[in-house]
């Protein structure tokens, strides 16, 4: 699962000066993308294209691995065989997605160890939404249904991007996400149609998650650093606002038809413009969480460090001194 927005960093002037691309190669590269052809790992590519793609795919990978934690909290407590098996399979898929995405990023030349190190040091980010706690079982159903739905909107857009290995990974990921959203929706509806206390638990979870969901696609286009170049290179595929609108359009009616409410009195579809109107979420909170001050940032990072440290002796025992880093082929 991954959201849009706040992925890309603008290159500094020095970086731009240090890495001037050969204009002939650049023109050929852009022409290839213009014709809808994919870029493959062994191709020549602009420095900035490689840098931003590594950043994008790596953060996506981290988000999958960290995304396993909030839902993982309910693996041992999931009610009944069906929910328990589905939840383990789902969280397992998230780890699997992380694996696929790290591989895709490695084709650009950055080893998995370096990416994990950047995650542990806080240098590399992951999606904000995973820095909130899943307080009750209902939170798991909200994540499984709505966060996964939001992620699909983003991932389907990205799967039409220009970089071959990322597209291939996303193709499989989107296929699995369609199971995730189904199982999430199923558990969500079970609570919505259940007893009064089940419904109440669900409504409270929905209220808690609405703001993180609205944050998911990133700041409004007018406020975010908008890179025309990244759009032209098909690295960034859809604007934050467009993805958020698409999400609201598909899922708000599915929430309302169950007679559940959303904690925004101004949320409505403007029938004239066809656009959804809503209260701007608190963007200060968004930046606060990105910079490490969310409710669960410390716990998530500490948990990841625990896993890496406790796996260290296992990995160490099997290190093969004859193996060398080779960039994966595809």
């Amino acid at each position, binding site marked *: 699962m991954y959201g849009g927005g706040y992925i890309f960093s603008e290159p500094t002037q020095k970086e731009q000066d240090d890495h001037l691309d050969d204009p002939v190669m650049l023109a050929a590269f852009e022409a290839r993308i213009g014709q809808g052809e994919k870029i493959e790992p062994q191709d020549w590519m602009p420095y900035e294209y490689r840098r931003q793609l590594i950043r994008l795919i790596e953060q996506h990978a981290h988000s999958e691995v960290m995304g396993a934690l909030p839902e993982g909290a309910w693996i041992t407590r999931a009610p009944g065989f069906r929910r328990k098996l589905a939840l383990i399979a789902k969280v397992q898929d998230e780890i699997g997605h992380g694996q696929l995405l790290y591989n895709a990023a490695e084709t650009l030349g950055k080893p998995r160890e370096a990416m994990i190190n950047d995650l542990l040091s806080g240098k590399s980010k992951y999606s904000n939404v995973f820095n909130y706690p899943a307080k009750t079982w209902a939170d798991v159903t909200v994540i499984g249904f709505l966060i996964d739905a939001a992620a699909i909107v983003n991932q389907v857009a990205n799967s039409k991007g220009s970089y071959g290995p990322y597209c291939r990974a996303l193709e499989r990921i989107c296929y699995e996400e369609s199971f995730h959203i189904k199982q999430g929706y199923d558990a969500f509806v079970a609570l919505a149609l259940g007893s009064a206390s089940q419904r109440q638990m669900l409504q409270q979870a929905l209220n808690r998650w609405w703001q993180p969901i609205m944050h998911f696609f990133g700041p409004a286009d007018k406020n975010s650093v908008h890179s025309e170049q990244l759009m032209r290179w098909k690295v960034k595929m859809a604007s934050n606002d467009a993805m958020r609108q698409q999400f609201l359009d598909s899922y708000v009616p599915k929430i309302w038809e169950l007679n559940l409410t959303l904690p925004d009195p101004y949320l409505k579809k403007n029938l004239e413009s066809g656009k959804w109107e809503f209260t701007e979420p608190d963007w200060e909170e968004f930046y606060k969480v990105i910079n490490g001050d969310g409710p669960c940032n410390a716990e998530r990072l500490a948990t990841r460090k625990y896993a890496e440290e406790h796996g260290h002796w*296992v*990995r160490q025992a099997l290190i093969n001194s004859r193996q060398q880093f080779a960039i994966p082929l595809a």
Partner: protein
Amino acid sequence: MNAVKDLILKMADDSLIIGHRSSEWTGLGPILEEDIAFSSMAQDKIGHALALYGILHEQFGELEADQLAFNRKESKFRCCHFAELPIGEYDFSLMRHFLFDHAEAIRYEMLSSSSFAPLAQLARKIKGEIKYHVLHANSWILRLGRGTEESRHRMQSSLNFCMPYALGIFEKNEAESDLITEGIFAGEEHLRILWEEQIWKQIDQAGLQFPNVPEKKVHMGGRSGRHTVHLHMLLEELSQVFRMEQGVEW
């Protein structure tokens, strides 16, 4: 018929509890690839429990699987103490997986020709899954046993710690002789002999020492409903949401 019910119940409880324990590693494994593999085996085990409770429900009129697993008193559980222990470090979890799954593989192999058709069918159906579990376990034990000084030491300590618990897998049920005479299951003693032979080979290849365990040190009691303190806590956790409200869909 009580003997066969006992057999199925203890197998189901073992699978449920061990599968639950394995799922505690999901998202926390030593490397992503292994995390995925271990989660699959957790699902397989819980799936085996579901199938076995299903047999109890269909053949013997017991409650449905969810009720048996999520809403039963601790003293009615028949799992061995070995399955109940917390996951500890990865060396312990791998060693438990190795010792337990070799016993599972032989048990299901024996059951595949059982005169009790539902068990024989299940045994044939999950043969492939169990084969993978054993391959996975053997691959790890061999490599970590012959890995670094630290990994060898960890595996040996885990083996020494596990063995008195592992032998508790073979605790006999009262009416086991009925199972043997009726051709349902050839018995725990027979299973244990085959198991020791099989794991001895692997342990030896891994360069580890086979620990000697006096019979009185073996952890028994699980098969008659006496459990470790860990099972109590595990069941509380397992059924926390399920028992919040009964008779509703979750």
